[in-house]
């Protein structure tokens, strides 16, 4: 059967991506306690020092491997629960209460950390490079002020898929119909440098009883950019039955192992005129629930699908291969990043035929449903 298409599952990369990764909302780490975060094949410890800075180190003590996330914050340092070795935010051991001196080699792995838009970002690079502040996600004007609701924060565990699966969504026009129940009417991608962007306009499907984005009254204009390998800012203009809202959705992840990651998302809403804070928060929570449904639909697909190195594409598909070429820049040594990976690339998906076919399919579904409803006898009095 030489005509059979071979599904190349390939092998996932042996390293984690170079770049900034978001670990959570800064305020959630600011309680004077150590916090454990699974990431990069191990565990990280996060704590706030007396100056209010957030520090991030490898979670295991270099002495005898004690779990620092179960230790205590003492002064500015994190103290190991096993033998009380004290580690500073710069990665150096500052004191060993029972020892004459601290060994010179007592340095552990430190993750350079920055708080951006109220979120804790850490730099990861297997080559151990200096953190590159030029490639941090942009500051969001107004976020963190009275003009916006507070960030929501949710985490979904994806225990058996590589995080490239979620990256692929950047170019996946058709899955918005099948997985998220929306008609993507406009769809465009631009990749350049460390940024990959998706522009989309969509309308909810009327045949899905409001599941996912499947609500005819829901019209989205969406601009979503990955700034580096793991952190996407999605600016959403949402029109729900004429009620317009500006939503900022953060879709980010931390790889936890060679084939697993934590999907995290945060959302805030520009408070609409004449709406009180409680109502604005409620609107934010409702949108967060809508996107939760969307992410869960994605996760269900990833946990059951095969990895594919050689996707077979049709004319209506987005530029999967070019997106992956862009993504590759974060998995090779900095010196091996080629111009092709970062050169500007623009792609306009032709959604006209797809939407014609989908409109027909939805019309058939609605007709069938109407027939079934008509055939069902009234049972209220039975």
């Amino acid at each position, binding site marked *: 059967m030489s005509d059979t298409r071979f599904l*190349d599952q390939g*092998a*996932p990369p042996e390293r984690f991506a170079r770049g900034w990764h978001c670990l959570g909302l800064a305020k959630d780490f600011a309680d004077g306690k150590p916090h454990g975060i699974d990431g990069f094949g191990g565990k990280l410890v996060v704590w706030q020092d007396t100056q209010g800075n957030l520090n991030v180190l490898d979670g295991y003590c270099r002495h005898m491997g004690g779990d620092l996330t179960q230790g205590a914050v003492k002064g500015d340092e994190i103290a190991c629960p096993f033998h009380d070795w004290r580690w500073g935010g710069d990665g150096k051991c500052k004191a060993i209460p029972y020892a004459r001196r601290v060994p010179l080699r007592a340095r552990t792995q430190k993750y350079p950390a920055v708080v951006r838009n109220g979120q804790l970002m850490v730099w990861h690079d297997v080559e151990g490079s200096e953190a590159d502040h030029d490639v941090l996600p942009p500051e969001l004007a107004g976020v963190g002020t009275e003009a916006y609701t507070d960030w929501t924060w949710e985490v979904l565990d994806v225990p058996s898929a590589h995080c490239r699966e979620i990256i692929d969504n950047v170019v996946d026009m058709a899955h918005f119909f099948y997985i998220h129940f929306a008609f993507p009417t406009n769809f465009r991608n631009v990749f*350049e440098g460390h940024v990959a962007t998706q522009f989309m306009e969509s309308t909810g499907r009327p045949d899905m009883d409001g599941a996912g984005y499947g609500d005819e009254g829901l019209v989205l204009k969406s601009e979503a950019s990955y700034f580096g390998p793991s952190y996407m800012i999605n600016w959403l203009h949402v029109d729900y039955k004429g009620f317009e809202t500006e939503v900022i959705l953060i879709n980010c992840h931390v790889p936890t192992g060679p084939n697993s990651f934590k999907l995290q998302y945060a959302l805030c809403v520009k408070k609409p005129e004449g709406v009180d804070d409680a109502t604005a928060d409620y609107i934010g929570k409702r949108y967060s629930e809508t996107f939760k449904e969307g992410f869960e639909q994605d996760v269900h697909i990833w946990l059951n699908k095969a990895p594919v190195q050689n996707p077979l594409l049709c004319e209506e598909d987005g530029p999967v291969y070019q997106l992956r070429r862009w993504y590759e820049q974060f998995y090779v040594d900095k010196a091996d990043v080629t111009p092709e990976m970062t050169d500007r690339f*623009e792609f306009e998906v032709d959604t006209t035929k797809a939407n014609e076919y989908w409109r027909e399919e939805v019309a058939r579904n609605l007709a069938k449903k109407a027939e079934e409803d008509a055939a069902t006898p009234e049972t209220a009095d039975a």
Partner: protein
Amino acid sequence: MASFIPSSADTLEDMLLYTQARLTQVACLDCLASVGVKKNSEHHTSIQWNAAALEACPEFARWDASPLGREIHQGCARLVASIDAAVREGHIDIGAEDGY
């Protein structure tokens, strides 16, 4: 060295096919930029820039120099017009070949 390692040589062929096949070089009518263009249909357009083309484009340079910088999605209208002209003159084949 690829990090996501394919297990078949055909996969490398596919990578080249989808990223490079049928790209026609289109020179901008207004500047020295030249980009690779593919059109699978009237409405579809794929534009592959390189560093030299980006440097040659005065529109992009103008945006780069503005205080807020250049928005990533900002395309060059002159280039789009040049591509449209190339299509009208029959320099670009419209249509996909088996999905690429």
